[in-house]
């Protein structure tokens, strides 16, 4: 394709998903610009990130082992622990960008305030300083752990509650809870971490669990749990894998009800797993008291569903995040109830030059999946891969949604779930099929290079 220009590509976000897509596109010779609102790389992994998107607290350690989290061609340093701290993770991303030499393609401290699709299909990005730039294709990698989801509807009495109410997003350090009575709502990973941390400093910690969960320890049998071996093989039927893992964890951990947690209303694997090695320990020490869901807030007290009441200085809502795209007009693209229909979580079935990277919630880590997605999009833009027909994508999306609804507990948390190994396995097969399709129809590039290249970085 000598002499024919490749499309000009924009990426929104230089977090763990944006940088790997950037690296691949640069390697493939695209003219790419990656917009990052912050002054540094890493997005949600940068503690106290100036762009306000970080969900990190000071003592956050990853809950998938570093082996699962690393990009395929850039392992984490040998001296990292199995479950590193967020600062190490952020440093790893920073190193990744320099290792592959793509920092120059990132425009720091440049937010994208608006992204509009013009009548010729190209993208007009309005930047933070009011200027605008044009692109042929747009990759969205703005993350999905930065826009807090508060309890809906709010608990009765929350408007007149005398204590503090906060979302897990703004929780930073345990010493802020020193000597206080703390109620933590939720049963996910943040709720586990925050209640454990609080249990060392706060006067009282109450964990209000709306439903039970299967607690997965970080280690089993002396190995990181996600490195235990063949159980994740996508060739093994899900039901069988579910049975084996549930058995293992049950044997290892025991019933969560023995610790006073509610009986899970679902089988293992039917909700996003809760990983914590310490929560059960702290409960058995009495440092965390388990409560049912909050019924209402009243003055300086919290009343639970069983009628019990406790004094509370702080209520921390670990109630998850919303998927949102502040730069898109809401009637153009939005994700009401966290639902957004995308082909294999990347391609918009109607808009053929818009892609979402890392917009998935794997049982495993996002980064290797974002890496695969970035390659996929690069293949597509280069004409090496051809999408299936629109109706095949729509029916895939519908089937995928039905499968997810069948498997997972109905919750706004479970709209973008994928199984790590299955996703990679299926995507590889689809890419092979699409390469054959593309070769069969002359490797035509699906997105034309229409906008003038501004010769930005290279």
């Amino acid at each position, binding site marked *: 394709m000598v002499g024919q220009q490749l499309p000009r590509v924009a990426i929104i976000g230089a977090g763990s998903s944006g940088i790997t897509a950037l690296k691949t596109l640069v390697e493939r010779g695209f003219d790419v610009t990656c917009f990052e609102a912050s002054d540094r790389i890493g997005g949600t992994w940068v503690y106290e990130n100036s762009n306000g998107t970080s969900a990190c607290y000071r003592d956050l350690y990853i809950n998938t082992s570093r082996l699962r989290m690393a990009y395929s061609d850039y392992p984490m340093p040998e001296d990292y622990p199995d479950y590193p701290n967020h600062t190490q993770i952020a440093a790893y991303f920073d190193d990744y960008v320099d290792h592959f030499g793509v920092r120059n393609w990132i425009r720091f401290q440049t937010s994208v305030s608006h992204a509009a699709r013009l009548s010729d299909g190209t993208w007009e990005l309005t930047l933070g300083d009011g200027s605008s730039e044009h692109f042929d294709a747009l990759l969205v990698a703005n993350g999905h752990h930065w826009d807090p989801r508060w309890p809906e509807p709010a608990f009765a009495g929350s408007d007149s509650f005398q204590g503090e109410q906060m979302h897990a997003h703004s929780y930073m350090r345990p010493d802020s809870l020193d000597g206080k009575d703390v109620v933590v709502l939720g049963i996910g990973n943040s709720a586990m971490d925050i209640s454990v941390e609080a249990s060392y400093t706060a006067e009282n910690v109450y964990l209000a669990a709306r439903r039970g969960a299967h607690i997965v320890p970080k280690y089993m049998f002396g190995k990181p749990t996600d490195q235990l071996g063949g159980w994740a093989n996508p060739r093994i039927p899900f039901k069988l894998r579910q049975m084996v893992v549930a058995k293992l964890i049950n044997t290892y951990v025991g019933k969560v009800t023995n610790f006073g947690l509610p009986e899970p209303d679902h089988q293992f694997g039917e909700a996003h797993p809760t990983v914590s090695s310490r929560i059960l320990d702290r409960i058995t020490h009495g440092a965390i008291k388990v409560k049912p869901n909050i019924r209402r807030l009243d003055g300086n007290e919290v009343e639970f569903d069983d009628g019990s009441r406790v004094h509370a200085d702080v209520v921390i809502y670990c109630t998850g995040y919303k998927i949102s795209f502040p730069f898109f007009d809401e009637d153009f693209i939005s994700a009401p109830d966290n639902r957004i229909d995308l082909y294999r979580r990347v391609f918009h079935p109607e808009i*053929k030059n818009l892609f979402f990277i890392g917009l998935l919630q794997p049982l495993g880590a996002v980064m290797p999946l974002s890496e695969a997605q970035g390659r996929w999009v690069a293949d597509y833009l280069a004409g090496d891969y051809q999408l299936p027909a629109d*109706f095949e994508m729509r029916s895939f999306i519908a089937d995928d949604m039905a499968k997810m609804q069948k498997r997972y507990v109905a919750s706004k948390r479970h709209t973008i779930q994928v199984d790590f190994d299955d996703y990679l396995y299926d995507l590889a097969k689809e890419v092979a099929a699409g390469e054959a*399709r593309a070769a069969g129809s002359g490797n035509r590039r*699906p997105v034309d290079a229409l906008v003038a290249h501004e010769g930005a970085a290279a």
Partner: protein
Amino acid sequence: LAEQGARCMDCGVPFCHNGCPLGNLIPEWNDLVYRDDWSAAIVQLHATNNFPEFTGRLCPAPCEAACVLEIREGDSVTIKGIEMSIIDRAWQEGWVVPEPPRCESGRSVAIVGSGPAGLAAAQQLRRAGHRVVCFERDEAPGGLIRFGVPDFKIEKHVIDRRVQQLVDEGVELRYGVDVGVDISGEQLKSEFDAVVLAIGSRVPRDLDLPGRGLDGIHFAMDYLYGRNRWVAEQLGPQPPGAPPADLPTISAEGKHVIVIGGGDTGADCIGNAIREGALSVVQLELLPEPPEHRPDDSTPWPLWPQKYRLSYAMEEALEIGRGEQDFSVVTTHFSGVDGKVTTQHIAQAAAEPPFAPVPGTERELKAELVLLAAGFIHPETDGLVAELGCQLDGRGNVEAPTYGTSEAGVFVAGDARRGQSLIVWAIEEGRQCARMVHKYLAAQSAN
């Protein structure tokens, strides 16, 4: 029945799969029946067969001929009986429900003909999300399984029940529309993204003999159509469309009937004729009488054995002393009185093609109704097929090695493609053709 399921040995190489054109997962559902897990069995059965209640009633069961237990002739697992029990139970339990697509593809397919091939293609394509319109020239769906096969082999409400499932899934059926006459093939091509011809193989083999023009000599299918319409009129179910007016009535009542052709169509003619009260029914077959047992030198297990099978109809006719079955018989001519046939002149046929009459063996048979059931040679090709310009193969069938005809966007399935064959092949062809149509539509709209 559980005992029959238990007899299945779940062979390492399941020859029954090989016997079945649909590749039915026979050992799987045999086992599920043995384990009394009928709801799982129907899932396995429906996975490869859209209409097990049709095949459970009408299929000659090549699977049973290929069953390893059939190496001792007559010992096979009663696969067909198990199949029918599974699907009958499923209907009874309400497990057969419409499975409409989760989303619409925005593409459309016209299917010409609503026989088993057309219906199978329609169901598969509809479930894949395409808009499907099935055109049927007769007044009711089913093709030969409605108008050829008698009610005592398949009750017509069985067909209606299944067609209702298709309708509930969103398949649109239009009756009394003869494509090529009422609407042109070009029109279909322009209105739909793909066209499937499932028009069967409906040109019967004729006998070009002196006296063929006499009154009382008919094609078997004309007789069977009449009988099936009569039964529908008398007993229902009423057809959704209007049957054509003033059709000639062909009746065997009180007559000496001769059926030329020793196959299933001939048998169905006999079954109808004796129910009507025919005085005698003689079935003539050109080929020599096959051996009583599987001939290991020509069709050894697991092939379909070319052996003598007493048809249900001849068994009935012999029972009441009105039946006769003759092999190696060739007809020389017909004669009659006042333009009506009275006598059929026959002779013994040579054992080898062209089965010429052996001199000196001529004799006469009393014949008041002669039904020609000597097979079908190819689909009707002078109307729609010619208009669309589809090429034919050497046998006069529509040429389509992978279901696509020589005309882009026009596909063919069933007897129209492979020549007259079993219902199980028709369903298989409908399914495979649907797959090729889906691939074609996908390739057409790939960006």
